[in-house]
């Protein structure tokens, strides 16, 4: 019943994206498109971000969301989609802390 969003259930990112768009907000969507090893969120997971940095959903269970939100601001600025990669072998990932030891690839695009 996740689509119905009963009270107490976390909001669904795609439904949030549509609501934000209708409210006239600028919206970016981040999607996990590939994972290796013990990635915290499965392929297809979404994080929706607006121009003010508000976000809903998750692509890593909290480890790299900050970095994805920052990159989403760039995507909203120039409208070009980006592919981001996070993993322990990556210096950026050490900094933002993908502590599970997995690697993920995240596609970030503008919506609307």
């Amino acid at each position, binding site marked *: *019943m*996740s*689509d119905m969003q009963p009270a107490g259930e976390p909001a669904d990112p*795609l*439904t949030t*994206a*549509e609501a934000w*768009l209708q409210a006239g907000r600028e919206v970016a*969507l981040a*999607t996990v*498109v*590939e994972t290796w090893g013990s990635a915290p969120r*499965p*392929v*297809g997971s979404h994080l929706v971000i607006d121009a003010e940095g508000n976000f809903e959903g998750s692509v890593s269970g909290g480890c790299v969301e900050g970095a994805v939100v920052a990159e989403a601001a760039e995507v909203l600025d120039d409208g*070009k*989609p980006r*592919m981001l990669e996070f993993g322990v072998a990556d210096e950026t990932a050490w900094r933002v802390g993908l502590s599970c030891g997995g690697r993920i690839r995240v*596609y970030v*695009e*503008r*919506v*609307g």
Partner: protein
Amino acid sequence: MDALSLKTLNAARRERRAVMRITDLDGGDDRVVGDDEAVAGVLGEAVAAAFRSGRSTTVEADGRRFFLNVHLPPPRLVVIGAVHISQALAPMAAIAGFDLRVVDPRTAFASPERFPGVDLVAEWPQEALAAWPLDAFTALAALTHDPKIDDPALAAALSAQCFYVGALGSRKTHARRVERLTAAGFGEAEIGRIHAPIGLAIGAASPAEIAVAVLAEIIAALRSRGLEARRGAAA
């Protein structure tokens, strides 16, 4: 993704239709397709496979990389009969990720004391299923042994193309059920979709063990979704 794609995608998800967003990772283009829409070539094969497995994935086709994001409706299980097996099946099915509803018009059986925390409806299947319609992502298990209650639910499940239809009862009981459903106008192939006797053959003896056998059979049907239908068409 444009606003229309997002709207189309969300509408399909609300209506419990299988839907996929295909994104060209090199060009940025995207489209939204349902599982009843044909997609040509190598990409089409990958799309069909992803709809079957329910797993989102990145694929290469025609020298480009595509991301296939599959959205299948969450599976439901309707259990007809608030019986002993159902008392074990309800918590097991919830753990396995099914939205579950138990339907039994007999209020002595369908009591909240017997089914704490379970979505329980003390109505006839005809009434209960009008409020919570069956679909291709719903399984139905008829467990009352009473044709007055089980038969209308089984007929509704066959008509709605439920991915799993199972009915409790011996081979003899099932033979009489087949006669009744045939008289009601169902064909041999349709009736053949009913799993009876219900449950995987694991020698289940207690109600809880039968519940395990039933749930395992439902999961097997869910994970081979589409394969069974095509075998039926070929037969």
